[in-house]
C-alpha cells in the first residue's frame, strides 16, 4: 500500500494532486494500490475528491490540524495498512511530520524529493544537497519510506469520473502536549505559493524601503512579492515571502529577481519558473545562469523606470 497525505481543504489542490500523482506512479511500479489520507478542516470533502484522482481508498481525519495528533493518526493508519511508502507535501508541516513519522514507523525519511525512479523494485529518490549545488540519488534501507515532495516537481494526477468511498476516523485521543494559541492572519497581497507572477527582492536592493517599489510593481503585474533568505534575514520581508530551499518552492510563469545573486538554495526554489528575469549589478552573478532575460544594472535605478513604463503602457491602452 502507498499512503498519500494531504491537508488540502474542501477538495484536492495542486499539491495534493501532485502527491497522488507520485503515489500512483510508485504504486503502479511496485504493484501496490493507493490510499489517500486527508487531514484538517473539511477533510471529508478532500478525501471524497481523491477517487477521481486515482485513490482506491480514502480516509478522512476531520479537524486533525495539530501535528502531534497527525503523527499519531498517520502512524496508526500506516501500520494498519502495511504501507510501504507515505508521501507528503514538502512544506512547513510535511517537513516536520515526515521525519517523525518515519522514525515512529522504524522506516526512513526522504526530504525535499525532486524525482522518483524505480530500480530493482526499489524506489530511488532524487533530492538536492549542498543548497541545490548538487543532486543525490538515494535509496532507503528500511521500509516504509516517508517522503516529502517538493511542490511543482511531480506530475499531478489526472482527474477521471471514478469515485471512492470515504472512511471517516476520529483523531487518536492523545493529550495535547503542544497547543496552538494563535495563527496570524494571512499577510496582505497574493501569497507567493500560487502566484503566476512573482517579483522578488534580495540583498542588492540595499534597503528595506525598496520593497515598497516591489509591491507597486507586483500590483501592476497582478503578482506577488517574494524575497531571498538574505532579505528576510535583514528584516525587509516576512518569512512567508521567502523563496528557496528553506522557503517556498514556486512555479510562476514569470519570476523577477531584483538584487538576488542566485545562491543555489534560492535557485532550488524557482526550478519550476518558466521565465526568469534577473537584475543585478554583478554580470557574473549565478542568477544570470538561470535567467532567460538579464539586466546588468542597479535594480534601484531600474525599478522606478519599469514601474513608469508599465504605467505608461496601461494608460495607452
Amino acid at each position, binding site marked *: 500500500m502507498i499512503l498519500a497525505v494531504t491537508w488540502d481543504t474542501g477538495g484536492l489542490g495542486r499539491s495534493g494532486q501532485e502527491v497522488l500523482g507520485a503515489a500512483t506512479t510508485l504504486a503502479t511500479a511496485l504493484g501496490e494500490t493507493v490510499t489517500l489520507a486527508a487531514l484538517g478542516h473539511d477533510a471529508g470533502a478532500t478525501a471524497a475528491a481523491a477517487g477521481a484522482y486515482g485513490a482506491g481508498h480514502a480516509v478522512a481525519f476531520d479537524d486533525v490540524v495539530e501535528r502531534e495528533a497527525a503523527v499519531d493518526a498517520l502512524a496508526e493508519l500506516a501500520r494498519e495498512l502495511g504501507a510501504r511508502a507515505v508521501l507528503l507535501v514538502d512544506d*512547513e508541516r510535511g517537513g516536520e511530520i515526515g521525519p517523525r513519522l518515519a522514525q515512529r514507523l522504524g522506516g526512513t525519511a526522504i526530504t525535499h524529493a525532486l524525482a522518483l525512479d524505480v530500480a530493482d523494485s526499489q524506489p530511488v529518490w532524487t533530492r538536492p544537497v549542498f543548497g541545490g549545488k548538487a*543532486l543525490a540519488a538515494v535509496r532507503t534501507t528500511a521500509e516504509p519510506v516517508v517522503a516529502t515532495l517538493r511542490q511543482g516537481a511531480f506530475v499531478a494526477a489526472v482527474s477521471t469520473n471514478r469515485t471512492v468511498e470515504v472512511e471517516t476516523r476520529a483523531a487518536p485521543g492523545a493529550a495535547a502536549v503542544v497547543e496552538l494559541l494563535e495563527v496570524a492572519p494571512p499577510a496582505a497581497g497574493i501569497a507567493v505559493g500560487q502566484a503566476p507572477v512573482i517579483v522578488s527582492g534580495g540583498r542588492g536592493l540595499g534597503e528595506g524601503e525598496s520593497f515598497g517599489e516591489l509591491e507597486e510593481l507586483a500590483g501592476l503585474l497582478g503578482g506577488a512579492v517574494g524575497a531571498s533568505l538574505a532579505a528576510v534575514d535583514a528584516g525587509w520581508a516576512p518569512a512567508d515571502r521567502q523563496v528557496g530551499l528553506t522557503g517556498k518552492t514556486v512555479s510562476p510563469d514569470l519570476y523577477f529577481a531584483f538584487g538576488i545573486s542566485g545562491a543555489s538554495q534560492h535557485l532550488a526554489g524557482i526550478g519550476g519558473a518558466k521565465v526568469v528575469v534577473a537584475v543585478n549589478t554583478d554580470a557574473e552573478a549565478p542568477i544570470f545562469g538561470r535567467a532567460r*532575460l538579464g539586466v546588468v544594472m542597479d535594480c534601484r535605478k531600474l525599478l522606478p523606470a519599469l514601474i513608469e513604463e508599465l504605467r505608461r503602457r496601461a494608460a495607452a491602452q
Partner: protein
Amino acid sequence: MHAVVLLKQILDWELPPRKFRIDPATNCPPAGLAPKLLGPFEQNALELALQLKDAGVVTKVTALLGGGEAGVETLRKALSVHADEAVLVEYAADGPDDPSQTASVLARAIERLGSPELVLAGRQAGDWDYGQVGYLVAERLGRPAVGLVWRVEQGDGRLHVWRNGPGGTEKLAVRPPAVLTVTNHDSLQLRMSSVLDLMAANKKTIERWTTDDLGLGDAELEAARRLDFDRVWVPEVESVCEFVAGEDPAEVAAALVGRLVDLKMLGSAA
C-alpha cells in the same frame, strides 16, 4: 532550565556553484574544497539559546557537536559567545552523512548530559540539507517537537513559541521537555565575540566523548544508517540568458517590457 544546542560544521555555503565539486569515489565534496564553518541555522539556534539565557528562561547552555577533531573550532566559537559548556562527540563516518545515524548518536549524548529540558537544533544543516535530525532526536527521546521556530518566551508555566507555518506565523504553547528546530530571522543573527571572550574560550575545557562512551558500538552505528547512495553529482546548467541593455533606465525598461511581450509573458497592452 538547561538547554542543549545541536551544532554542526558545514562546508562554506557561500562557495560559488562553479567552484563546487563532488568526488564520485566518495559521493562527497573533496577534502579541503572550502573551509568548514558553523552552519547558519545552527548559528540561529545558538543565538536563540543565548537570548533565553539572557532573559533568565534558561540557566545553562551546552553546545553539542558530533564529528571530527575540526569541530573543536566551532565549539570554541560557541564558548566565546558564552555557551557554558561544550561537548564533542568524536565519530567519523565514511561517505555522506546519514541523519538517522547522527540522531542516534546525538540522542544518546543528550541523555548522557542528563536530558536537558530544552533541545535546540537548526532547521536543516546546509550541507546535506536533510532537515531531519531535530525531529528524529525528538522521537528517540519521546518528546514533542516544534519546527521552524524563531522566537521563544516564558509563558504560563509553558514556553510560548512562534514558528513559520504553511499560512504564516503561528504561536504555540509547549511544556518542556521539548525539541525546537530554529529557522532564520533578523532577530537571530549570532552575536559577535570580543578578543577577550575568544581568549577565555581558548582556556575552557571541551568535553570529549566517543561513541563507545555512549554505549554505541560500530555495529550499532552501522545499523542506524538508513540511506544508500546511488550517486551524487553536480548538474550541468546551460545558460540561455539574453542581456537587455540601453542608454538609460527608461530605455532598458522599455526594451525589457518589449521582450516580455514578445515572450507572451505580458499582454501587448501591458
